[in-house]
């Protein structure tokens, strides 16, 4: 993943499923870190949106997840591994507007079926795999091209 680069900032965060009170905390924390390092604000914005959507998916559907931020001078890599129901049909889940959200979730303003498509839109490279009944695995890459604020 980040072979050949020694200068890596790496931090792992835990996300609890169904914990709506803490939802969004991990993406906020990541945003803070990127700001301190001085990453370009448009890149921070994209990373924050992608991370937030990934985080919300865990909160809504999974039991728990580990999200790891790896940052090198050339890219931001977010890896998310969750324990949860997994996704039966990834192709379908990637379609805009498709959602399995419950009415309660929709009432809270979630479940518009934009989560995964939104992650893809904001990433430079996006990988997703899933095992039904076990969990989902995401890799989000955003390249930095040395653009500074």
């Amino acid at each position, binding site marked *: 993943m980040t072979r050949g680069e020694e200068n890596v*900032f790496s931090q792992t965060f835990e996300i609890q499923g169904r914990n709506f009170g803490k939802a969004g905390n991990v993406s906020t924390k990541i*945003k803070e870190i990127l700001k301190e390092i001085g990453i370009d*604000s448009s890149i921070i914005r994209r990373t924050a949106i992608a991370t937030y959507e990934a985080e919300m998916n865990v909160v809504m559907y999974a039991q728990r997840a580990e999200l790891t931020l790896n940052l090198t*001078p050339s890219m931001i890599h977010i890896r998310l591994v969750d324990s949860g129901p997994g996704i039966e049909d990834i192709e379908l889940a990637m379609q805009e507007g498709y959602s399995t959200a419950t009415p309660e979730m929709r009432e809270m303003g979630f479940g518009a079926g934009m989560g995964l498509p939104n992650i893809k839109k904001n990433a430079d490279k996006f990988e997703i795999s899933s095992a039904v009944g076990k969990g989902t695995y995401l890799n989000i890459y955003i390249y930095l091209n040395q653009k500074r604020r």
Partner: protein
Amino acid sequence: MSQYFHSIRIDKEKCDGRMKCLRICPTQAIRVRQGKASIIEEKCIDCGECITACPNSAIIPLTDPFGELTKFRYTIAIPSPSLYAQFDREILPGKILAGLKKIGFDDAYDLAFACGEVSFAIQEYLREYEGPKPLIFNACPAVVRLVQVKYPDLIDHIISIDNPREIAARETKKKKSKQLDLREKEIGTFYLTPCPVKMISIRQPAEKGKSHLDGAIAITDIYGPLLSAMEEVPKESYRKSLESICILGIGWAVVGGICRTLRLKNSISVSGLTEILKVFDDIEKGKLRNIEFIEAYSCLQGCVGGSLTVENIYSSHNKIVKLIDTLEFEKIKACPDIREVRNLYRQRYFFIEGKLEPRPLKPLDENLARAIMKRKQKEEIYESLPQIDCGACGSPTCLDFAEDVVKGEANLGDCLFKNVSQTSAILEEEKEGKESRKRK
């Protein structure tokens, strides 16, 4: 010498390093080194929390002395509507404005009227606004600076309508210079301020080169003279003195006062910086998108809660609310003419004159690779600290301390718990505490 003007100074003689300011600062802008507090200019938003917190009165708000008036041939007082809530209930705005003319101002302008006009202007603005929501109002300069420094992404949420105090200063100057055949710079406009932060918005406006106001005088400084001067003001009938009060503008002195005039379906009012931080965090997380407008004041209860006011803040809040009730009951609706406001709005009369830019904090290093390395070191240092935010090192939290060490502004040895020889016992105890907190 420094890039930013601040309306707060620390008197090093009086400061004895009691750290109250260190803990209360919402942007972690204060450090205590060698027993004396100092402000990190880049981080300070001039909210004034430290002024109130300091037990030694060592933190001083910089406002203009009353003597500044002599520099001008003609002077106009523009009092914050919060001044109206500082006296007994029977003392109404008309009498206060008359009192101001007795203590040395040539004229006194009722800012509540300009507030009413701006309320109408905001309604117009919201009607055609298509940018990011919620819109954040800019009457409180501490809130504007908080966004510039801590929430640069939210800069586009800040409304482009100017403050009533600026518009009032601009217009009265124009009018008086014509009337009296004076040059505009011979006329001094002074804001009577409930807080020090308005001072920086005059000396160093967030968005434009120069303020239309010439200074800010603390309400606490004029309170005494004004109180005695008002005794000489002839009594007006109660009904008559009510009739000149603009019901739309008077509420601007308290939190909720602007939202009340906008009649929006979804708007919120928030006061106190800790509460504002929570709300802005939520906006950053993408929440509150259904809210159209946010009215935010760094002081509790709004401008009546400023550190340069005299009356108890809850009592003054109540006075304003009761005054509005009375005006409603008496069916007095002294308001600006909405058609005229709309006309002025189309001429861009109400818009800010520059562009508000973010003022994000400097990164850990200008070089990306080094910045990443430093962030890594910061995390490692933080992990080695007790994480109890005792503040004894002089940094407000362990995380700030870790950053200060990485930046070379503090030594790891400043941490009591790092001085193992003396404090090994405490260290062990703390470690256990930390482990058990982690297990939870």
